[in-house]
């Protein structure tokens, strides 16, 4: 198994030398116990630099340089992670891709926007695109197994698979030179036919993505009313670096789960997987041929 360490921003580059944190959180302790319990001592051989969710949090060119240099010094392979982008963010991503191509021509890029995949094909063809988990449209709905009659049999199989598994998408992604796709551990479990999808695959631990968007609850905090809850041009103070938002439902429409907690960070809602769920997921992942696990201390 290849272990990749996610570093979402330039300020966090120090994590590369202390991956689990000086004061390891309970979550990271659980992740480490699960992973090392099944596969022995872990060594991170790949750096995932950047995040998938917000064009306001793209790294600067200086930070990209620093990240690549650090990865090279530590003997780690390098992957740039990119979010979905508007025209504004597209220009930033274009500059970063060209810079990366110049520095490491065959570096990987995780793509969460069809336009970014198009840019790589047109302008940066030596880079290695990876289909990010936001473009893999498997449902990750925590209510699926807590609200209604649980899907079984063929229905369950259908909820585990993805359009990416079909021939039309295989052909399309081959055309764009995508050979690796990324996954969350969905509430309904992984597809046992994953090897038939025809790609190498990566799995993210321990945060699965429920939804993300361009109107940010945290960004709006402290702004005047007419500036709140809207998309906006220009920079952001990125309060998402400082806070998690624990979510709970006092009405109990969304039942608590033993397998995850639901939280928001910045503009994205996640489910944070508990140890038993991670353990079962990793066992399945190993069995069905997942070749890379991406560990995220913080997803953004």
């Amino acid at each position, binding site marked *: 198994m290849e272990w990749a360490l996610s570093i979402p921003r330039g300020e966090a580059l120090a994590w590369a030398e202390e991956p689990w944190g000086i004061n390891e959180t309970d979550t990271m302790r659980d992740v480490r116990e699960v992973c090392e319990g099944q596969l022995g001592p872990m060594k991170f051989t790949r750096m995932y630099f950047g995040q998938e969710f917000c064009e306001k949090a793209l790294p600067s060119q200086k930070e990209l340089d620093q990240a690549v240099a650090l990865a090279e010094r530590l003997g780690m392979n390098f992957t740039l992670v990119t979010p979905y982008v508007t*025209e504004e963010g597209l220009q930033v991503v274009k500059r970063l891709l060209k810079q990366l191509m110049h520095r490491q021509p065959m570096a990987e890029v995780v793509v969460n926007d069809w336009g970014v995949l198009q840019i790589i094909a047109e302008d940066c063809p030596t880079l290695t695109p990876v289909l990010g988990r936001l473009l893999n449209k498997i*449902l990750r709905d925590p209510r699926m197994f807590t609200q209604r009659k649980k899907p079984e049999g063929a229905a369950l199989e259908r909820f585990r698979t993805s359009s990416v598994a*079909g021939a*039309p998408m295989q052909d399309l992604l081959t055309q764009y030179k995508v050979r690796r796709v990324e996954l969350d551990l969905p509430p309904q479990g992984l597809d046992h036919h994953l090897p038939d999808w025809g790609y190498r695959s990566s799995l993210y631990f321990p945060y699965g993505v429920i*939804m993300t*968007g361009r109107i940010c609850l945290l960004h709006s905090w402290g702004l005047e009313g007419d500036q709140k809850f*809207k*998309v906006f*041009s220009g920079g952001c103070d990125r309060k998402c670096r400082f806070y998690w938002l624990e979510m*709970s439902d006092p009405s109990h429409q969304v039942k608590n789960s033993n397998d995850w907690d639901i939280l928001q960070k910045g503009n994205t809602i996640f489910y944070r997987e508990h140890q038993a769920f991670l353990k079962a997921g990793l066992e399945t992942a190993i069995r069905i041929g997942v070749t890379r696990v991406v560990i995220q201390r913080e997803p953004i």
Partner: protein
Amino acid sequence: MKILAPVNSVKEAKILSKLGAEELYCGLSERAWRKSHGQDFWISRRGPGNANVESLKELHKLVVVAHKAGSQVFLTLNQPGYAPELYEDILTTVRQAQEYCGVDAFIVADPGLIRFLKEGLPDLVIHVSSLAAVLNSATVSFFSQMGVKRIIFPRYVELETMRSIIDQGGDQIEYEAFMLNDGCVFEEGYCHVSHAFGGAFCHSPPWDYKPIKIQGTERDDEHLPGEGVLRVGKETFQEHLDEYRRWIYIGIHNAGGRLGPRGYPLGMCGLCALNQLKEVGVMSLKIVGREAPLKKKIASVKLVKEMLDYMEAGHSQEDVRAQAKLIKGVTDLCESGYMCYYR
């Protein structure tokens, strides 16, 4: 610019076409599909019931009525992705919808499905759904290569972004933008839940939020002296959350579903931007709400038609903005900005 209105029946198609909707869109929820694939595998983002036409036979009649009135009909297949084993059944449905019913175009988000449908039916007209999250010009380029005809901008795409995208997209592609009703909290193309499991997860239930500070990121200005409450500037998180819930009520819940003094719907709206939308090259204005009652659909089409006629009569952007606020009759809600698609 044309008005695109949601319909679920022959009756609605007849009425809304007559009121000025030159384009209509609908979903389909056939019994045979539900029997084969279960209640939870919706062929579009809305399930059985008011949001959909129940059969191809009904769809055929709807299209006949619409065409007679001079309106086009689009069928929505707008799940962000489908299990590949469903593609053949979808192709069968699409073939029948095109050949037997005469549907004019199909609204699709899944690029694999677009390719599959175009291979099977090369002349098929595809509109790329807002669920495909076309937020930039390179994504237009990505979908253009599949021979699509129209791009539907997601909600809240800024007008200058639209201008940039349209300028680069070329003349072969049409563009459609949201105009009225039903905001989304997040980006629907990056929403990995299904309404089949209990509605819109983002605001239903009304979530409680507890901010947790990440260790090692404390700042001196976060608390007033002697106070344990987190603040940004003067605002506590609870005050901010109260305002967030107000935004959800007004913009996402359509001000609780109530109507304005003249009977027009409240909630997300792009009327103030009509002049700019025309200027940048948008040609179709989307009214949301396939599952809404006919009364609301009628009011929505009438509102957009009235304002479109006003704008086309040569009124300036400022005049259009003032008129829109006047006829909606809820100036305080308009001034909040919480009902604006394009603020």
